[in-house]
């Protein structure tokens, strides 16, 4: 009822002037690893640029060793290939693949984990952002709930700017349930220099970029 009333009212206006120009955004260009690293660092992330997957494993092991608590990770191919349980040396710590959990166990584990690890679909050099597509292979809360978040990307996933993401997503016939674009950690945004810093999301963010030569 309300729908029809609202639409009828809106339709009773017929534009007398034709619509003005449409903005055409650029095509799809690869972005620079250095620019991405610089921007992501400015947004509060810590960046490691590594040569191969062995070095990725070494970096993850370092971070895990420095930060206690359980680890929860996504089931993307890149992440599974790291065999994360093998990187955790202490027996009392758990490393959990989110996908194999039941929903109830997942809900418990996600709140009890200290470190979340995922990959991403793309990264954006201009802003230092990560673009995650959420599915049963990459749950939404892995990159949000744990206080420490690690993301692993390959340099060829870095695009120049955000409008290129629009050009990729727009023609997709079947979209994932959600995309998240994450840029660093929550900045302090109040009268005091620290209020708000990392308030509801991760407090620390590590991005490991595999730049193959």
């Amino acid at each position, binding site marked *: 009822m309300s*729908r029809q009333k609202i639409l009828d009212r809106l339709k009773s206006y017929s534009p007398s002037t034709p619509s003005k120009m449409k903005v055409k955004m650029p095509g799809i260009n690869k972005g620079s690893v250095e620019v991405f690293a610089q921007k992501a660092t400015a947004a509060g992330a810590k960046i490691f640029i590594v040569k191969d997957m062995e070095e990725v494993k070494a970096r993850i092991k370092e971070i895990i060793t420095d930060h206690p608590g359980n680890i929860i990770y996504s089931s993307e191919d890149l992440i599974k290939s790291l065999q994360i349980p093998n990187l955790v040396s202490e027996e009392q710590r758990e490393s959990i693949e989110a996908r194999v959990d039941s929903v109830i166990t997942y809900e418990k584990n996600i709140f009890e984990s200290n470190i979340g690890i995922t990959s991403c679909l793309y990264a954006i050099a201009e802003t230092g952002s990560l673009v995650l597509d959420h599915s049963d292979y990459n749950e939404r809360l892995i990159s949000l709930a744990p206080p420490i978040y690690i993301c692993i990307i390959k340099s060829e996933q870095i695009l120049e700017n955000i409008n290129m993401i629009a050009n990729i997503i727009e023609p997709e016939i079947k979209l994932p349930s959600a995309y998240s674009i994450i840029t660093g950690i929550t900045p302090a945004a109040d009268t005091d220099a620290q209020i708000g810093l990392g308030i509801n999301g991760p407090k620390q963010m590590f991005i490991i970029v595999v730049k193959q030569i």
Partner: protein
Amino acid sequence: MKLSPRMFRKVAREEVAEQEQSNNRVMLASVANDLCDTAMSYYGDYSEQDKAREIAGNIRHNNLQNLAELLEWFELNATLNGMNVLWAENGEEACQMVEEIIEEHEVKTITKGKSMLMEEIDLANYIKSRTKTTLHEGDLEGFIALQNDTIRFNTAIPTLNLDLSEIVEILNHRQNMPHTNEASEVVDYIREFLRTKFKQADMGITGVNFAVASTGSLLLLENEGNIRWSTSAPKVHVAIMSIEKVCANLDDAFYLSSLISRNCTGQSITTYVSLLNGPAKKEEKDGPREVYVIIVDNGRSEVYLDDEFREALRCIRCGRCAVKCPVYLRIGAYPYGNPYPGPSGTVLMPLLLGLDETKHLYQACTLCGACMETCPVEIPHLDFFQRYRQLKASGDKEYEATSNIWNKMMFESIAKGMDNNKRYERALAGLRAYTKNFVTDNYIEKMPMPLASWFIARDLPEIPSQSFRAYWQEEGFRTAKEVKEDE
């Protein structure tokens, strides 16, 4: 206490007095300058900024020209994506829809993200008074403002007027948070508190920055993560948007989003951008199982039909106009008494609430034009404010304006006086003689009615005993007419 635009003068006086006792005004001006400088740094120079404004202005103009079609297109695609799209003619209907969703899903706890539309329709109070559901504000500053029983102070930084010790005091009083001098401890306390609520929530309610017609998606911007929580952890997500929030495609939505973050918080992009395309798929472990989008009109379609005021709906709620407004910087947000403090609300609210109810908003404007020069979507604020004043003076019934008979008489007399040189000279001589009685130390600080209110916040230098014209003649200088005749 619930504020309203009718209380503008009273609250403004209180705010000015309070700010003179603290450094809030200095702080607000300094943050405003920082934001503007940072926003400018993304443009490079003013020509770049103008180019961006032209592009964004065109996008919004196009969106509005095709509003009905875009809304239908969005509805179709969002429905195909599995969302439930509902339409509400006014705030009450929207609130009732939320109540029905709460009942249907037996919701006990809700977390909400920051949304001006929710404040406009007073959804939080409706839920509190009509349901047994507990509603938690997930946004940090909104949360603190709520504990302080106030509305948000600034679009981007709602507790800009509070320092750490005041925040600690409020949280200690309302939440029993232990006293501390460490900001990080306050953050940790609120983080843990909100985390428990996100975990418990059965439903998340958020606003919408843009609805994308071509993909049927919702685009939401934030810095804190509370919107991601509210759209990921609970089983039901309700998104509330006003009709003008629809965009044709993702290009447009991303372009406008970048302008919001630049102009609102001085960032190139907000920390989190969520593009939500529908409920979670069956196999997904998190994400809502049901998504409802409530498209709210609340008077906007009437505004849309008025050729003179349609472009008021261009606003993307970045709040840049407020931080450039000398009135806002002097009095802060509270006197405006509506969820859209500053020039953007002064454009919209008179059209929604009527010109009498909101007269102080557009009458307080100094017409300096700073808002118009900086608006990223080229809203001509001053045209609106001047037109509202005209309509108010003429007692326009369509926009609920009644003219003030005394004002009308006064301005008609002034117009008559200024229309004729002799009458003008005589009036000025009379005024000069009359005001002499009120001069103290070369200034007039007080006058009786009907001029008394003008002098509440202003002093006028003593009117010289001789006019410039009389001085010129007395000194024997030639008039322009005489110079021209000689030539």
